[in-house]
Structure formats: C-alpha cells, structure tokens
C-alpha cells in the first residue's frame, strides 16, 4: 500500500512546463506577500468571461487567469511589466487606441477584448518587423521548441515578411561564448530587455545594459566586454529570461531541448532553492530555478543553476573500495563485501577498545533521512552517543545560543520576511557570495530603501555595490564581535531605546534585570570597547539608533559570528539585542542565521549532536529518551558522546579508533590540518562515504560511494526551517541509496534497520519529533515545502517563530561578557587572518572544482592591505608565505583595500591552499566550533610553496597511485 503511494508521488513530481502569467502578482513582488493584507478585488470582463482579480493586477495577468493568453515577448511573470514588445496590445471598451495589456492595470467594470481583427493585424505586423531582423534558422536553432519568438510567430499567424531580408539587420554579430555555461548570440536578440531587467530586478547585479539606442540598441555586458570579464555573476537569470536562443545554456546547445522535468532542491547553500531538473530521458540537460520555489521564487545562482557537472565527473567513485592501511592500494569490492568488512572492523574495534571507541559524523550535505539513519546507527547499533555533525564546525553556536535565549535552535523568520525589514543588519556574513539568492532578495529590499548596517572586518560587496550602500559599516577587528554587540546593546539601554512593553510582555524579567545591569556597565559602552573593536564609538551609537528605531530591524548573520571562541556568546548577544528592541515575532524582524550548507538546519534537527536527540531534546530528558527507546527497541546511553574535535583528540590519545564519515572532509575543512592528519592516521578504521576520494579518504580504509543530490529521494531543511523535497533525477551511480548503505551497515553490525523508502524514515522522524509531527512526503508533494514547526497533520508549517510567545516561554537575556580570544596578534604574528567564501566555489570545493566554475576562481588568494603589503615587499599577484602558531602555507597575494591594515583574508576552496594548515585548534567555549575567523599570522614574500604544501603534493601523488587501479576498473 505504502509503496503504491510512493510511486504515485514519483509520478506527481514529473512536471510539465512552467506557467507564466506575464506579469507578477498584484503586489508586484514575488517575495513581498508575507503578511500583506489581501488587496480589494476588481471585476472585469475579458473576451466575454467575467473574472475577479486583486486590485493592481495587469490586464495581461487577468486575461491569463481567465484563460485567455495574450501574445507577448517582453513580458514574463518574473519581471515587472515593461511594455516594449507591443504584441500584447488589447482593445478596452471606452479607451482610445490599443493599450498594452502588460502595463495596463484592471479597473472595475473594464471590458477587454484580446482578439479582434485589428489586433490580429497589428500583432502580425509587429511580428513581421521582428522577423525582418532575425535569422531564419529555426530548424537548427538551439531554442527550437522552446522559443517564445517562434511561438508568437505561430500565435499571430505570420506567413510572410514583406520587408524582405536585405534590409538593415544584426545577423552578422559575433557570438560571445566566453561564459562557461551559456552562450550569447546577439544575432538572435530581439531587444526585449528581459535579460537586462532580470539582471537588475531579480539578481540585482546590473551587469547588463542596452548599448546605444534605436535600431542600434544591443545587449552588452558591462562596458561591452566578454561576459566572463564583465560584472556578470553567471546566476542564469538572463538565460532563463531570454525568450529566444540569444542567451542559452551550452548544455542545451549540445544536447537539445529537455522533454521532462523533476522538481527538486539545490544541494549547495542553506538557501535551499527549488529547481526543475530538466531531462532528456535519464540525462540531465539543465537546472532551471522553479518559479513556485518558496525560498527562491524562480531565482538561482551560478552554482545551483549550472555547477552540477561534478555529479557525472570522471572522478566519481562508483564501486566500494577497501584496504588495510593507507599505505595499501585500494581494492574495489562489491557492496556486500564492503558492508561486511566495515561492520566486522568496527565490531572488532569495539571488542578491543570498548563500546565508545567508535563514532560517526553526519553531513549537512546529506538529506534529513540520511542524517537521521546515521545518528540512529551510532546510538542504536554502535551503542554510544559519539555522533556529531559537520555543523559542529559552522553553526553549532547558533544552536546553543538561540536555544538558550529564545528556546529554539533555528532562525526566526522566513526569507520573504526580509521584504518587510526597514533596517537590515548583516553580521559576519557575506550573502552575495555565500547565499546569493537570498542576497538578491535582500538587495531588492535595500533598493526599496531599507537601511543597512554591515558588521564585518572586511568591506564585503554589500558595503558598497550597485544600488546598495551600507548606512554603517562597522569594520571591526577580527575577534571583537562580542565587544561590538555589547556596545550596541549598551547604547540601546543607555539611550533609552529599548522596547519596554515587549520586554515586559515577552521576556524573563529577572534575567532581563541581571542582563540590563551587566550591559549597562561602562566596560560595555561603545567608548570603552572602541579600542578592542577599532570602531569609533559615535558610529556604533549611530548604528544602534538606526537599528533600534527602525520599525522593523532584522539581523542576518553567518559564520563570521559563530566561528569564534565566543561564537555562542555572540549569538546570544544578537538575540539579546533583538529582544531588547522588540525585534522578534513578526514579519520583517528577527534573528536569522544564514546556514552555510544546504542541510545544516536539518542535520542539527535530526539529532546528530552528541548530547541531544531529534528536535533538540537533551539525552538527559527521560521521556524523550524513553520515546526513542520504545521506537528503536534499544537502550540509549544517557551521557553525551564526543564532538568531532574531541574525537580527534581521543584518537591521538589512542582511545578512539573507528569513524564512519558521511560526506564530510575533515582533512580539508577542519582547522589545524596537521592535527587532523595525526588524528586520522591514528585510527584503525576510517570509513568514508562520499562522491569522491576526498582529502579525508586519503586516510580511509573503507570507501563507500555516495550519491549526489540528483540521485536521491529525501528532504533538505534550509536556513528558514523549510523542509523541501529532494527527488531522484537519475539512479545512484553506485547502485545503492545512501540511507540504505547506513541501514545495511547497521544491520550488519547487528542492529536491524530496514526502510522501503526515505518517506518511511520521515514518517519515523515525524512520530518521534513534535516539531515534525505533521510532516510527510504526501504533504510535501501537495504544498511544495513546509517550514517546521509543523505540529500536526493540519498544519502547513510556521513561517515565523515566536509570534505570541517564545518557544522557551519567556525570552531569556543571557549575560555576554566579552572575553577576548587567546588568539592574539603579537610581534611574531602581527596580522590577523580571517576567512570566507567566494560565489563560484563551494566550501571545500570538492564539487565546484569539478565543474567549469573554476573559470571564475581557480585558486585561493590572500587579500592584504596595500600598507601591509608594501612594508613586506609583497606585490599584487606575488607569492606570500603565511605562518601561524599552527603551521605555514603559501598563497598568492591580492592587494586590496577591502581589508583593513593588520587584517588578512583568504578563501578555502582549494586543498593545496592549506588555509587550515594555519588555523588553530582554538574553539568556541560552549560548542567547540573552531575559531576559523581569527588566526594570528605573519606574512612575507616567498618564491616557493611551503613545506606542508610539498608534503601535501607528495602525499596526494601517492594516494592517487594507490587509487589508480580502483579508478581504472570502475
């Protein structure tokens, strides 16, 4: 019965073409409907059919809703009406001429005719003009079958072009194929400006323009340069918007038009964009952002849109591999042997070193269901709580800090909420690089006039970029976060800007009084903290006033908050500030962590921390534990297990010997690489489940080939708690579902785990987790996505948290003393290094480096201020040695004023960069989240790679040799 249901769902999600009503809904803004009141209704008659639509609806949209499709070329639902193509003209009784239906809004009693003989003639004559300057190569055109110009020529009945084809034209213009994923063929351009408008309105980059005017009008990138050299960020919005083959995916040029589509969820960042994976049979042709996607509303970034080639890259391992030691060659084996070997080795280790000598790590890249079964495997089959998730190294402080203050380990808002923010505060986050689709929404709101405060050591793009300028950039020194959040809160109290009514009604007053006394202390004033932060007190006070008096103040933060020795303190400081100013519990406000990976929220929700079960319930909670014990039929250890860094320490100590790693690459991503290497080398059985033989796999004994997101059914939970379906587009290349690998391993270890389909795993999660109670695959199919908490079957989810009261009841003000990090600059290490990401690459780069996005970012570079560069004799593009207390590496210099003197910055997408060779083992006091964002270093010119890099190259070469046979057999 259940299986039957599952099959139905598979049918359900193979979807047809996207509907396009030509103009956006009446509120004009796809992301502006959170909480907006319903517009009054207007009654009109279109082609004899009466229809009622919201005030502000275009005649074109109303016609579409009434079932009358008006021909159009420049109009699309994703963009504001433009009125240039003049195909959508209609006749309106009582009006002169022929108004464009896209730009004309409905009025009460309006009577519209979309088809009359004169309109037919007019449209045909306009189309005749278009075609008089268009190549006649429809049959061999890449857009053949998916060309709106072709469709419209058909729709208006164009049969002849009386102007002939020897007039002025643009047919000889050369193609621009410089961009890695799409080509630009100006000969086919109809100058509808959809690409330009998409770049402006949707993406907010403004990289395209119309050059010249009149007949000479042409679309260009930046100053008429190749796309690859221009301001274009390759988000693909222009490609999606283009009605012809002018801007088209190279994959479509090569493969032809897709014939079916599956709606799924992107596996890159925490925005969780919904995509249509468009297919030819079982071949993926392209990924197109889904207009109905609740997180992205039809928008995308370069990674989700284009960088999926890694899924079929030649480096993919599709056969399980086994070896005895890391000096041995890998041996390809069948699944049964691999699972049996893994289980035997883990059992042997437990027998020899004790039950707690093994553990597992879940990946935020994997689905909720996959994560869930891994933590269940460790707790139930391995019988301990040594399970952690890679969120440990990114957002564990968010979980701790928000749980403590607000009562729930999650962001408070939906993404659309930003459209109602009056002042946006971005702290330690770089949305345009790391959360680009949400950044586009944010920039849209900023263009509408919202204020902006950026708290960051570096001048990120949001500080100043086209049509965006921060009102305040609090350019603090790395490590001074808590000092500045305290100074902001101090100002609020000091200047009487707190929201007393909110605090009284919603917060724990005893805790508030303690906090108020603490924060009012002079040491927390902007004046007293100015030396530590490097930010002038007046600027801090001005920013505090702007936020506190905003109306709606919304805080967005990222790893620049969490990845510090005081990450958890800072998260609580942010929550305190929001509570003190009443900025919680309604649209447009809130405290919003921007999650790095696609399923950070989900991996945390699933109970893969060593101290808690799904839904953030501590192991010590008797009733919760009982619930799981009853469902799983096993006794659970009541004590917390090891966190990832504890595991490494224990491994070096000799008491932790076996590790099951699900899609996580410690050897590149975790700090203090040499320490990680030592820990991995000390273990007897490292099982890596991944797509590629990654850095960690070089230390592994068993390799279990995983599935790319295209190969799985499951769910991801994005940064706004939105559970979205991930759907199998192609079958697993290695022939095994990832959740099934874990289940088989568990069963082989002696604990039976059997599911027919991931939907059954979700059903179990829903049974055990109050916040997921109403979640099911059937409901996801119906609603598209669901934001937890979804406490019962009737609920459609919860976009906004803490609306009437905080999850913990009363909001808790936690005192947040500023304790400077021990990682301090001194004479030997006078500079502070901080790290971040770039748009085109993704974290460790395992995926993106195996795609054509490398064209945008082929190496990590070290940003250094001109003053620091000059005194060291470092010039732009030269090699720089970088030495910290932990290690030494070499990077190429990028001399820039984006960073302050004394501060260095780099990205960490390429393993050979060794960014983590120099990061230290310092970590957040509460959660052990590593302090990636502050490392004291010295920089100096060098001419050759570091010792570590030499070692890395040798080691990599050796490991490559050891895997060659396995790879050649695959």
């Amino acid at each position: 019965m259940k299986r039957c249901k599952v099959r139905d769902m598979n049918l359900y999600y193979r979807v047809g073409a996207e509907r396009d009503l030509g103009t956006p809904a009446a509120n004009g803004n796809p992301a502006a409907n959170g909480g907006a009141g319903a517009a009054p209704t207007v009654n009109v008659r279109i082609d004899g059919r009466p229809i009622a639509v919201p005030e502000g609806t275009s005649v074109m949209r109303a016609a579409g809703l009434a079932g009358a499709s008006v021909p159009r070329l420049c109009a699309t639902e994703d963009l504001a009406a433009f009125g240039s193509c003049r195909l959508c003209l209609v006749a309106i009784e009582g009006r002169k001429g022929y108004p464009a239906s896209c730009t004309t809004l409905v009025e009460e009693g309006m009577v519209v005719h979309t088809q009359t003989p004169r309109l037919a003639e007019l449209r045909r004559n306009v189309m005749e003009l278009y075609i008089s300057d268009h190549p006649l190569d429809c049959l061999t055109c890449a857009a053949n079958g998916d060309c709106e110009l072709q469709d419209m020529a058909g729709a208006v009945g164009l049969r002849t072009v009386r102007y002939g084809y020897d007039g002025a034209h643009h047919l000889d213009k050369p193609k621009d194929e410089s961009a890695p994923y799409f080509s630009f063929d100006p000969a086919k351009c109809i100058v509808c400006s959809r690409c330009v408008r998409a770049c402006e309105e949707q993406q907010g980059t403004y990289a395209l323009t119309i050059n010249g005017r009149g007949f000479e009008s042409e679309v260009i990138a930046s100053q008429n340069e190749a796309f690859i050299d221009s301001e274009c960020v390759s988000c693909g919005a222009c490609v999606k918007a283009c009605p012809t083959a002018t801007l088209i995916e190279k994959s479509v040029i090569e493969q032809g038009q897709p014939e079916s589509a599956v709606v799924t969820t992107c596996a890159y960042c925490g925005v969780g964009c919904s995509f249509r994976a468009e297919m030819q049979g079982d071949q993926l042709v392209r990924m197109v952002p889904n207009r109905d996607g609740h997180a992205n509303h039809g928008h995308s970034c370069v990674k989700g849109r284009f960088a999926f080639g890694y899924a079929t890259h030649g480096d993919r391992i599709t056969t399980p591999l086994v070896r005895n030691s890391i000096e041995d060659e890998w041996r390809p084996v069948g699944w049964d042997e691999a699972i049996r070997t893994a289980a035997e080795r883990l059992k042997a280790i437990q027998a020899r070193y004790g039950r707690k000598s093994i553990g597992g790590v879940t990946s935020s890249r994997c689905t909720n269901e996959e994560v869930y079964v891994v933590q269940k495997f460790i707790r139930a089959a391995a019988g301990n709580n040594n399970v952690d998730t890679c969120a440990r190294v990114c957002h564990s402080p968010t979980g701790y800090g928000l749980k403590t203050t607000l009562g729930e380990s999650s962001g408070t808002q939906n993404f659309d909420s930003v459209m109602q923010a009056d002042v946006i505060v971005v702290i330690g986050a770089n949305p345009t690089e790391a959360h680009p689709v949400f950044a586009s929404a944010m920039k849209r709101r900023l263009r509408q006039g919202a204020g902006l405060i950026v708290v960051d050591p570096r001048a990120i793009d949001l500080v100043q970029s086209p049509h965006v300028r921060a009102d305040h950039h609090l350019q603090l020194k790395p490590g001074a976060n808590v000092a500045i959040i305290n100074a902001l809160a101090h100002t609020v109290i000091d200047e009487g800007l707190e929201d007393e009514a909110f605090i009284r009604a919603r917060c724990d007053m005893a805790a508030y009084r303690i906090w108020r006394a603490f924060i009012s202390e002079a040491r927390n004033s902007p004046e007293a903290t100015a030396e530590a932060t490097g930010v002038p007190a007046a600027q801090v006070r001005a920013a505090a006033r702007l936020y506190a008096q905003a109306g709606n103040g919304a805080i967005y933060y990222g790893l620049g908050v969490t990845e510090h020795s005081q990450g958890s303190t800072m998260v609580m400081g942010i929550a305190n500030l929001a509570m003190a100013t009443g900025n919680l519990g309604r649209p447009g406000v809130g405290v919003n962590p921007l999650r790095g990976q696609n399923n950070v929220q989900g991996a945390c929700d699933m109970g893969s921390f060593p101290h808690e079960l799904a839904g953030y319930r501590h192991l010590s909670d008797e009733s919760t534990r009982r619930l799981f014990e009853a469902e799983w039929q096993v006794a659970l250890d009541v004590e917390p297990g090891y966190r990832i860094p504890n595991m490494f320490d224990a491994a070096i100590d000799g008491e932790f010997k076996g590790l099951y790693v699900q899609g996580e690459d410690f050897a590149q991503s975790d700090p203090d690489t040499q320490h990680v290497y030592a820990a991995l080398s000390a273990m007897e059985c490292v099982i890596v489940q991944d797509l590629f033989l990654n850095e960690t796999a070089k230390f592994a004994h068993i390799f279990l080939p995983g599935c790319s997101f295209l190969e799985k059914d499951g769910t991801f939970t994005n940064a706004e708690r939105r559970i979205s379906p991930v759907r199998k587009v192609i079958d697993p290349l290695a022939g095994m579902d990832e959740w099934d690998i874990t289940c088989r391993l568990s069963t082989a270890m002696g604990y039976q785990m059997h599911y027919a389909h991931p939907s059954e795993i979700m059903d179990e999660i829903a049974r055990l987790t109050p916040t997921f109670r109403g979640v099911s695959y059937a409901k996801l199919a119906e609603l598209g996505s669901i934001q937890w908490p979804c406490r019962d079957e009737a609920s459609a989810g919860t976009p906004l948290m803490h609306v009437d009261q905080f999850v913990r009841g009363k909001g808790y003000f936690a005192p947040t003393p500023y304790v400077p990090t021990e990682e301090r600059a001194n004479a030997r290490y006078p500079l502070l290094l901080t790290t971040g990401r770039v748009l085109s690459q993704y974290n460790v780069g395992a995926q993106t480096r195996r795609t054509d996005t490398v064209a945008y970012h082929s190496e990590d570079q070290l940003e250094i201020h001109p003053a620091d560069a000059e005194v060291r004799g470092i010039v732009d593009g030269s090699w720089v040695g970088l030495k910290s207390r932990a290690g030494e590496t070499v990077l190429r210099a990028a001399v820039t004023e984006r960073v302050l003197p004394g501060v260095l910055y780099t990205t960490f997408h390429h393993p050979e960069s060794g960014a983590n060779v120099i990061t230290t083992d310092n970590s957040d006091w509460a959660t052990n989240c590593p302090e990636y964002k502050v490392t004291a270093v010295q920089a100096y010119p060098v001419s050759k790679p570091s010792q570590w890099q030499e070692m890395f190259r040798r080691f990599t070469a050796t490991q490559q040799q050891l895997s060659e046979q396995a790879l050649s057999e695959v």
Partner: protein
Amino acid sequence: MSVEAFVPADFTACALGADEVAAAVAVAPGVEVRRTGSRGLYWLEPLVEVATDAGRIGFGPLDAASASALFGDGPPDAGHPRCLGLVEELPWLKAQSRLTMARVGVIEPLSVAQYKAHGGFQGLDRARALTSAAIVETVTEAGLRGRGGAAFPTGIKWRTVLEAEGDPKYIVCNADEGDSGTFADRMIMESDPFSLIEGMLIAGLAVGADCGYIYCRAEYPLAIDTLAAAIRLAEGAGYLNDFRLELRKGAGAYICGEETSLLESLEGKRGVIRYRPPLPAIKGLFGQPTVVNNVISLASVPAILARGSDHYRSFGVGRSTGTLTVQLAGNVRRGGLFEVPFGKPLRWVVEDLGGGTASGRPIKAVQAGGPLGAYIPPRHFDTALDYESFQAIDAMIGHGGLVVFDEAADLGALARYAFEFCAEESCGKCTPCRIGAVRGVEVVDRIRRGEAAADNRVLLRDLCRTMIDGSLCGLGGMAPLPVLSVMAHFADEL
C-alpha cells in the same frame, strides 16, 4: 548724457553678427550699449534699437561696418534714412498680442530690476496671496494648455499633482525644445529667463513642490548660460529661498523632449520612454508627483496670475485660449517669432506676417508641429491656427513651429527623412519604432526607386498604421504623420 542702444545678444542674432555690431556701436560716442534679447524679427537682425523720447527706434539689419557708419557720429535719430521707425509700431509687432513674450527683446535678460519694472514677479506676488487650490483654479480657468505639443490642460495636470500623495513633489521644466522650426523656448530662456523661473515658483506654490529642475537641451548653450546666471541672480534676490531650482543639460537626445524620457534622463538614466499610466503627475521624477511643463507653458503663467484668467481667456478661440507663439522657419521671407491669439488663419501668418518664401517661389507646403507634424498643402492654408481646427485636417500645431518649403522641396525625400529622423532618435524601447522606422526608410527608398511601388505603398501604409497604433510614445506614434500627409497631399512624390 549718453543714449541707450539696444543690441540683441540672442543666439540667432549673434550668429548673424550681433556681437560685432554691438562692439561697433559700443565705441560710438554718446552711446551706451545694452544687450537685450531678440524681438524675434530675425529678418531684421542684427536689429539695433535706440532709445528716444517717443520710444525705441530701430535700425536693421546691420553688420559691423554699417553699424560703425550709422553710429560713427553718435546715435542716429528717427530721421535717418535707415531708420525703421518706432519698433513697437512695426506692423509685425503691432499685429502680435505679446502676453508671454512681452519682455522678450525689450529688457536686459539678467536684470531683475528691469524684469520687475516690466511687470515681473507680479504674478508670483499674486500667487503668494492665494491658496494652492486657488492658483490651480486660476490656471485652469485661463484654459492654458501645454505648449510643448500635447496641449494637455495645465490646470488639470497641476490639480493632479496637488492632490497626489507624496513628498517631495517636483516641478520639471521641459526645455528640451528639439522640434525643427521651433525656438520660442530658447528665446524665453535667453531673453526673459526670470519669467520661466517665476512660472516655476508659481507652479511650486500651486502643487506644494519646493524643488524644480529645468532640463535644457545641450544645443542651446546661450540659453543654458543665461538661465544659470538668472538662477544665481534669483537666489541672490531671495526668490529661491524656499525653492531649490537646478538647471540640467541634455545630451543630444531628441527623445528626451518626451516627458517620461526626460524624467529618466534627469534621474541619470538612459532616456528611455516609461509607459503610462502611472502619469508623471502621480509618479514622476524619482517616483514622486511631478509637474512637467514646457518653457512657454510655465512662462505664460506669471501673466495669467498677474492679469487674471479672464484676461488670458479673452484671447484665442474655443478651447484654444490665449496666445500661440508661432515660429516661422525654413524657406520664409520674414522668419521669426510671432505671438498671436489662437484662431488666426495659417495663411495670414505664413503669407502676411511671413511674406511668403525667402526664395520668392510659391509655397509648396508648410510643416507644422515639428518633425512629427504633417506637411500642409496650400489648399489647407485657410485653416485656423487652433488645436481643434488642425486636428480636423490631420495636422497638429505642436509647439507652434511652422517650416515653410518652396516648390523646390522634394516631399518624397522629406517623407523618407521623417523615418530617418525617427530611426535616428528612437530610444529603441518599443519594436514598432525601433525596427519600423528603419524599415520605413527602406520601403520609401524602394517606392522612390519604383520597386513594386504599389505593394510597397500598401506596406508603407500598413507600417504607418502599425507604428501609430503600436508605438509606446509619440515619436513612433507620430513619425508616420508627415509620411501619411505626403501620401495624402503629394501622392505623386511618393
């Protein structure tokens, strides 16, 4: 005691040598040269006026040599054989009803004192005593219609802005006078700039705007310099304490004379047409309620306020009240500006005031209303110069420019030029204009070459109708009008 001699410093007058004449006169004994604007009697320029007890007497046209000779022994008197007599009594001035242009050519443009002495700022004083609604009412009652070409009732536009929600509101003066055959705006800006400033201040009071922009085309350098100086003087005299007025320069785009394109340009963007609605009155400059009026419209306002709506309405006919600043141009004997009441016959203006063609050959056609206006054949010369009568013959008055052509004119070539101009100046937004104009040139060429002429005439007519019905703005929508007029009235030339 020296005698005042008035020498125009107007753009055209200077092109005809007024500066050299002024220099020659300045060295004459007993003469004090004052540089005024031009009266608009350009066939008499450089026209030097000499003050006498009876009034100013005129001498012209002069050049440096004749001026030196004339003024060699001191200022000439009315008895001099070259004297044209009292300027005000010249028949071409006598026949006019100068309301808007009353001070043009009379005063020194940058003299606040002279401006006031000749009735300036009286309208503003009156407006200050009225409520906003009462000012709007006065302008509405006067029946003033936009002189830029669209002829929309100014009072109604102002009322819309007055009633629109928004702060700030803007007054934008469209000084992008780009129609061939027109120069009235230029003359106001060069010769009586304070009247424009006063008009804008009154408009500001009328709608509750405290900020204004004048967008002047870059092809008018003298107007720009004069206005810039006038704004500084008005500031100095305290007229701009409560009103920020800025002058902005266009950059050669004819389309920026269309109000939405002009607003885009003022915002620092490509001068691309915006669709309407929303009207600029509701969502104009930077999305705020905005009055956009032409120079002459705004410069007409002070006189309406000063002398009352009834006085203004006593000129003109029907719904075309007040006066029209006719600009006679092209192949015409007496080219210049004539402010006359609406309703006068076209023939009277062209033949009586204008004196026929400069070449002496018969008039073949008059193009009225700029490059988008129809070519009117002599058989329609009895049409009255008012909006409705012109509409009845498929023509338009536009900004009041009349370009005269003699028999040598090739109207087929002029029809081609209409498309060529449209192609040259199209903003490129809408398809009928962007591609249609180029195809129009090509089709006309084919017809003129005799290729499938009958089919191509059908196609041409289709194209014209497509552009008229399909274009986003007046450029594409009206560029076919001269073409259709040629097809209608000069069929054998196209």
